[in-house]
C-alpha cells in the first residue's frame, strides 16, 4: 500500500506533472480537430453534391466514430512519447521521480482523452445542426443517429476506457530500453500464431477476455485493471532508466 500513499513532495510533483500533461491539450486538440475537420470536409462534399443533384440519401452520424479514430491515433502517439528519452528529459527538468511521472501522465492523459471526447460531442451537435439546415433545402435527406443521452454516456465511458487501455499499451510496449528485443518478440509471436493454431487460439482468447461483449461494468473492471497493470509494468521498465 506504500505505493499508493503520497507524501507532500509527491503530491506537489504529481500536481505539476498533471498540469504539464494538461498543457499539451492545445497541441493535441489542434491535430485532433484537423483530422476530424478533414473527415467532416470530405463528408460535406457528399452532402453538397447531394443537395445540388437533389438526390435522396440516408446519412449516418459519423462524427463520433471519426473522433474516436482520431483520438486513437493521438493517444498512441502520446503513449509512445511518454516513454521516449526526450520526454523523460523534459519531465525531469523539474523535481519528479519515475513513479510520479507515470502516474501523473496517466491521470493527465485520461483527462485529455475526456476533453477530446467532449470536443467530439460538441462536433456531434454541430453535425446535427448542419444536417438540419441542409435538410431544409433537400427534403429527401434522412439523417440517422441512434444516439440517446443514456447510450451517449455509456459510449463516452467505453471510449474513454478503450483509449486509456491503448495509451497504456503503447506506453508500456515502448517503455523498455531494448526496442529491438520488443520487435523480435512481436515478430516471433506473430509468426508463432500463424504457424501454431494453439498459440493463435491462446492469444485470441487472451484478447477476447478483455474485449468480449458483456456487461459494461465487467468490461470496465477488466479494462481498468489492464490499464493499471500496463502502467505498473511500464514504470518497472523505466524505473532504472537514466535521464540523458
Amino acid at each position, binding site marked *: 500500500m506504500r505505493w499508493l500513499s503520497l507524501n507532500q*513532495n509527491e503530491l*506537489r510533483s504529481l500536481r505539476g506533472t498533471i498540469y504539464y500533461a494538461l498543457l499539451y491539450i492545445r497541441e493535441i486538440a489542434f491535430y485532433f480537430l484537423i483530422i476530424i475537420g478533414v473527415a467532416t470536409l470530405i463528408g460535406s462534399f457528399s452532402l453538397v453534391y447531394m443537395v445540388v443533384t437533389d438526390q435522396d440519401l440516408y446519412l449516418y452520424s459519423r462524427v463520433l466514430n471519426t473522433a474516436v479514430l482520431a483520438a486513437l491515433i493521438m493517444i498512441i502517439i502520446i503513449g509512445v512519447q511518454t516513454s521516449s528519452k526526450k520526454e523523460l528529459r523534459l519531465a*525531469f527538468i523539474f523535481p519528479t521521480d519515475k513513479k510520479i511521472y507515470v502516474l501523473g501522465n496517466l491521470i493527465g492523459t485520461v483527462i485529455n482523452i475526456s476533453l477530446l471526447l467532449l470536443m467530439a460531442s460538441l462536433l456531434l451537435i454541430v453535425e446535427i445542426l448542419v444536417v438540419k439546415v441542409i435538410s431544409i433545402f433537400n427534403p429527401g435527406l434522412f439523417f440517422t443517429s441512434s444516439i440517446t443521452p443514456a447510450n451517449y454516456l455509456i459510449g463516452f465511458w467505453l471510449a474513454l476506457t478503450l483509449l486509456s487501455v491503448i495509451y497504456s499499451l503503447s506506453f508500456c510496449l515502448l517503455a523498455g530500453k531494448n526496442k529491438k528485443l520488443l520487435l523480435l518478440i512481436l515478430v516471433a509471436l506473430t509468426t508463432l500464431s500463424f504457424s501454431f493454431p494453439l498459440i493463435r487460439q491462446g492469444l485470441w482468447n487472451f484478447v477476447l477476455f478483455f474485449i468480449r461483449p458483456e456487461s459494461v461494468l465487467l468490461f470496465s473492471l477488466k479494462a481498468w485493471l489492464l490499464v493499471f497493470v500496463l502502467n505498473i509494468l511500464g514504470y518497472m521498465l523505466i524505473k532504472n532508466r537514466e535521464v540523458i
Partner: protein
Amino acid sequence: MTEIIFKDLTKRFRHTTALSHISLSLGGNKIIGLIGRNGSGKTTFLKTIAGHLKASSGEIIVNGQNPFNNLNIQSELCFIQDETNYPDELKVIELVRLAAIYYKNWDAELAADLLKEFKLEGKKNYEDLSRGMKSIVHVVIGLASRAPLTIYDEPTLGLDAAVRKRFYSLLLEDYSHHPRNIIISSHLINEAENLMEEVVIIKEGRLLLQQKIEELQQYAVYLNGRKEVVEPLLEQKELYEQKSLGRSLIAVVKNDLTSADRDYIRENDIDISSVPLQELFIYLTGPEGEEYDEMA
C-alpha cells in the same frame, strides 16, 4: 544545508569514462564553482548529483541518500542545465506557473519582478525566445526556486556582459538573504570569481583539485626577472609556463615557495605576483605537457 559526498565514483557511457574515481565532499551553504574544459565531465558530475545518472561504480550520497530517482532529494534541488530546453510550445508564463507548482520554496514575487526587469513577455512561446532570453528564463527559475541546492550548468550562455553582471549581483544578493548551496559550472571564471567560495576543478573526468577560492588565488605565481637568476629558482618547482623576453624570463610556478625562496627572490630583485584565476585554469587544465612549452 546540503551535504554531497562522492565516494570513488566512476561513470562510464559504453566505451567512454566520463568521471573517474571521484572522491570529494561538498557541504554547507556555499557558492561552489565547478571548473573544467569542454568534455571534462562537468555536466555528468552535476547530473549525477541531480540524480539523473547512476554511478557505474562507487557511490554518491546527497543528504545521506542516493539521489538517483529519489524525489526526497529532487524536491530540495533545482537543476538548471546548459542544454535545458523547456517544452517549446509552452509560454513563459506557463513555465513559471509550472515551476511554482513544483518548487516548495518558490518566490512568486521575485519571479514576477525578474520577468519585469528582464522584459520577458509572459505570453511569448519558449521556442520563440533567443538563446539569451532562454538563459534568462532559466536564471529566473533558478533564483525564484530558492531550492536548498541550486545547480547552474553554464547559466550565462548567450547572455551579454551587462546581463551576466546583473545575474551575478542578483545571485549574490539573493544568496545573502537566503543562504543555500549553489553550484555553478562556468567557463567565465574571472566574472564569477567574486561569487565563489570554493572551487572544484575537473580534468578529463578526474578531480584535479578542490580548494577555497582565496587559496586558489594564491595557488600559482608569476616570477619575472633576469633569466640567470630566475632559472635556478625553477629547479624542483612545478612549472606551468615560461616565456623569454630578451634577457628576462617570465615563469608561472606553483606557489609552494619556501622562506629561503622568498629571500632569494627579494635579494635578486625578481618580481612576484599572483596568477589570475582564468589563466590558472588554463594552465591547470591544459593538455599534459603543454604547461612546459617554451612560449617565446
